[in-house]
């Protein structure tokens, strides 16, 4: 392969643009019936506010004191009846919307206008100034809102506007807290450092970089607080210190209905009370709906397992042998996608692992390595599901096992080690308790037995001074020591299969070696099968016996570690080897794999690697290559076996060790 063939495509073009966040937001809002209800209600209220004459049927102030016109029930003329002065309830409710919105407008302008700048300043400055501001804020926060409103009324004059100034000041404390919290978190983000390095001034960083990130939570908070403001306004009017007693304000209307309520029945409080309840409810529903619709991804990250359905059988049979630990044949896994058709995450994946053997699984991020292992163990994350294939574990067909049956197998026979050892440990629990818990649950040990066993396990993974370490918390462990604890926990129930998903990627390189040595040592002692998932071919070269190369949710090739490194069968394997800086000699450009890993929603036609493959021909981009069997291994490449098509690496040992 010449250098020029490895040139990247000079310009990368992005995938077609997805919905903008705004489009997605409105789609989600319209699909949510409660959000739709509140939005329709607000349209009605806003029309009532801006142009009440359009909706009102009567003059809200016009009294009609003819006796039969007082306390009237609903009728064709007065849709919601009349009050004690013969005024039309419906028209008064319509005009009341204006009072409600004016209250919100005044209070919210003050609350956000004061609260957000103070919060931004306080959060950005931090330290003593921040503590002083938050102390004052907390004092104000703890005062009842109505008390603050009354204080303002006493200082100024009683009016709804003055009351709302007081409410606004009280509500500002809520926005100070919210804004400060977001600012404290955001200022630690690297993009803020990047802006400072660019030379952007602090006020501009606050206004253009941090404030937009504040907006989602601000809108949600504002919607919920608006509901509260209406209630407080109505309460003040009801008490006679808000709107004047003739105004068609909802609180005033409730106040006026109060003395007549017992005599004239419950109807008198219904129009204004109903409008109040519906409006407050609508604000809260809107707040919830906005919060749900803003989320960048609606699906949760929690690992929920799909309900099992019967799986179509595999077309090929399993490998045989007493030492076979796990064998997977022709596994397909599908995920329903938001845009309609299901997307196939895994296609025709087959592999097996024998006792005492390490299978290295390698491929770029997004190639399906981790998904393969989860699915093989019945852990396909929802809403994905296995649709074809079969899995044999320790000689038994476990393809259609129930989740419950799987749990007992996994707990005892399979151990898993993860990339981030610290993240797996509960920070609030002593390490010893976390090791002992599965021993007591799965193995039924007593506390003393479990402790003895925990010390043995930590000794096995060479944690110095194990008895003392058991009583420490996870934060007292370095990354390497925490990974040893992770390994000890995975080994606790004597598993036959250990799955190590990037076990050394997050660790320092000198610690990585220690962990790989430890795994090798334990494997020899226990004759355990290990599946080692990693993107680092160096780790594969050190630790694997056999290798599974994955790309685009498919197996590209399998082989012994020598085969894969010295005689790769697939151009993808060859390309991965070429990109390693260790394999680069001279000063020229590093070899790259042009382009990016395709998304499962848009697999290319033909060979999935063809768009990035320097050896691709026309038939590669139109025909999906079958999985060819070569001796005991497989390869998925149309050009395999073609005369002169040779991907062999230069012979080993050309590099003299330092």
């Amino acid at each position: 392969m010449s250098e020029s063939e490895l040139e990247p495509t000079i310009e990368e073009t992005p995938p077609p643009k997805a919905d903008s966040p705004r489009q997605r937001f409105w789609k989600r809002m319209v699909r949510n019936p409660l959000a739709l209800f509140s939005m329709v209600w607000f349209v009605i209220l806003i029309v009532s506010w801006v142009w009440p004459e359009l909706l009102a049927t009567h003059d809200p102030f016009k009294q009609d004191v003819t006796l039969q016109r007082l306390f009237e029930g609903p009728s064709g003329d007065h849709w919601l009846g009349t009050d004690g002065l013969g005024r039309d309830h419906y028209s008064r409710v319509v005009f009341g919307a204006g009072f409600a919105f004016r209250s919100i407008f005044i209070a919210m302008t003050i609350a956000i206008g004061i609260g957000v700048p103070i919060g931004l300043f306080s959060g950005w400055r931090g330290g003593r100034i921040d503590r002083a501001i938050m102390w004052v804020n907390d004092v104000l926060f703890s005062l009842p809102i109505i008390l603050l409103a009354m204080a303002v009324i006493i200082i100024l004059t009683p009016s709804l506007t003055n009351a709302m100034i007081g409410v606004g000041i009280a509500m500002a404390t809520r926005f100070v807290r919210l804004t400060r919290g977001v600012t404290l978190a955001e200022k630690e983000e690297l993009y803020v450092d990047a802006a400072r390095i660019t030379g952007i001034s602090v006020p501009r960083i606050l206004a253009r970089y941090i404030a937009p990130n504040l907006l989602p939570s601000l809108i949600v908070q504002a919607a919920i607080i608006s509901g509260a403001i209406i209630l407080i306004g109505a309460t003040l009017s009801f008490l006679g210190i808000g709107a004047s007693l003739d105004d068609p304000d909802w609180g005033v209307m409730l106040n006026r209905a109060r003395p007549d309520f017992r005599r004239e029945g419950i109807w008198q409080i219904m129009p204004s009370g109903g409008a109040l309840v519906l409006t407050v409810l609508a604000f809260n529903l809107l707040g919830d709906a906005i919060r749900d619709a803003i989320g960048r991804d609606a699906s949760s990250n929690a690992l929920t397992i799909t309900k099992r359905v019967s799986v179509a059988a595999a077309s090929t049979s399993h490998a045989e042998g007493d030492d076979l630990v796990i064998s997977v044949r022709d596994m397909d896994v599908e995920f329903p996608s938001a845009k309609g058709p299901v997307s196939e995450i895994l296609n025709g994946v087959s592999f097996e692992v024998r006792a005492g053997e390490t299978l290295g699984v390698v491929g770029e991020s997004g190639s399906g390595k981790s998904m393969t292992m989860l699915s093989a163990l019945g852990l396909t994350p929802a809403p994905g599901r296995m649709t074809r294939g079969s899995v044999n574990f320790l000689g038994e067909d476990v393809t259609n096992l129930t989740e419950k049956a799987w749990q007992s197998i996994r707990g005892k026979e399979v151990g898993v080690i993860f990339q981030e050892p610290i993240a797996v440990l509960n920070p609030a629990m002593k390490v010893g308790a976390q090791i002992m818990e599965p021993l007591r649950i799965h193995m039924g040990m007593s506390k003393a037995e479990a402790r003895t066993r925990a010390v043995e396990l930590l000794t096995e993974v060479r944690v110095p001074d194990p008895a003392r370490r058991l009583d420490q918390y996870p934060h007292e462990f370095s990354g390497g020591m925490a990974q040893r604890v992770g390994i000890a926990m995975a080994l606790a129930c004597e598993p036959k299969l250990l799955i190590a998903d990037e076990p050394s990627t997050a660790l320092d390189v000198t610690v990585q070696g220690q962990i790989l040595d430890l795994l090798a040592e334990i494997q020899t002692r226990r004759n355990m099968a290990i599946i080692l998932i990693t993107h680092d071919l160096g780790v594969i070269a050190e630790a694997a016996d056999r290798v599974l190369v994955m790309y685009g949710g498919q197996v590209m090739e399998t082989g012994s570690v020598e085969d894969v490194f010295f005689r790769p069968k697939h151009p993808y394997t060859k390309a991965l080897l070429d990109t390693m800086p260790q394999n680069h000699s001279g000063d020229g450009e590093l070899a790259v794999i042009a382009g990016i890993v395709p998304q499962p929603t848009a697999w290319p036609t033909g060979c999935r690697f063809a768009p990035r493959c320097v050896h691709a021909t026309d038939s590669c981009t139109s025909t999906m290559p079958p999985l060819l069997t070569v001796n005991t291994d497989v390869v998925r490449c149309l050009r395999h076996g073609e005369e002169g098509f040779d991907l062999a690496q230069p012979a080993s040992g050309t590099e003299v060790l330092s």
Partner: protein
Amino acid sequence: MTDTPTTNTPMLRSQDIDGALLEVDDLHVHFASRGKLFGTTPPPVKAVNGVSFSIAPEKTFGLVGESGSGKSTVARAILQLVDIQSGTIRLAGDDVTKVPPRDELDFRKNVQAVLQDPFSSLNQVHQTRTIVGDGITRHYGTKAGAARDERVGLLLDAVGLSCEFLDRYPYEMSGGQRQRISIARALAVEPRLIIADEATSALDVSIQSQVINVLRRIQDDSGVSFLFIAHDLEVVKHVSHDLGVMYLGYLVEKGDANAIYDAPTHPYTEMLIASIPMPDPVVQAARRELRQTFEDDAEPPSPANLPPGCPFENRCPVAMDICREVMPEPTPAHHGGDVRCHLHTSGPELAGESVVEFIKTKAQSKLSGSQRSNDKSSAQ
């Protein structure tokens, strides 16, 4: 600064600088530990201890070390993001140890950075045109619009992305694409120095190579200098002309990158090299053997409580008594730089030559020694 630059006279007076573009001399950075309400304040964390190095124009200096080695703190000190304890930093001869606010814009124009995390280093609420364009507006006054977009388009072209990326948000791009946007952002103000702090660490190897090629092409085209910081010595060696190795805040070895890689003079450098897994099962088997001569389970000391001697002493296979008591001073080494290790001045007195053979011989004699004692015990 003696002569105060105005907006018309940039801080860098000439394009041709005699000597180094960046000089860091005896840099110390300490972080105060937070005191408890009662009781004494714990000692400060000594993140950077007496680090000195320089970067020539159009060259790349690589800084390598493991987590906690202080390499990112060096970068943050140069970028004025942390306060330093003592030492000086000079840019093209001008003291920039602490840039006064009125000169900050000028300084920022000359020194830019590409940060580690391709996810959090871009603001999620901005499109590429704003992320890259903001710096152009700030430093050149070009307002947002067609003219600025055209300039951003050229920068995208330089990092191998099409103009269609102009209206993309960060979450619509892959890690490699985001990191190239970060590079375009740094290039936008046409700096003299770009600090790349773990700029490729979060990427797949195939994508990492793309980004490294972009960085090297940019250096060839614009003559920018790089401070390239990473934990992967293999990558650092590939992009760097000169190399510095940090361990617990000390620069333990620095010099020509290839010469250090081929014949390191500090045992820690050798340990780092031996720890890089080679993508070749036969070569790797030999490397593994070498790696295992180092003390396996010893943990590095805490940077809040550094020993008086060499901090690597407890992991070093060839440590001597003096190593426990005295921190070695820099000694000239064969690769043109210097090394902080007692082996070169006392004991075997390697005088700046490679330490590899010495470690191997030592390890072998230790191994055969323990075998002899095993034979003895089994004979009894």
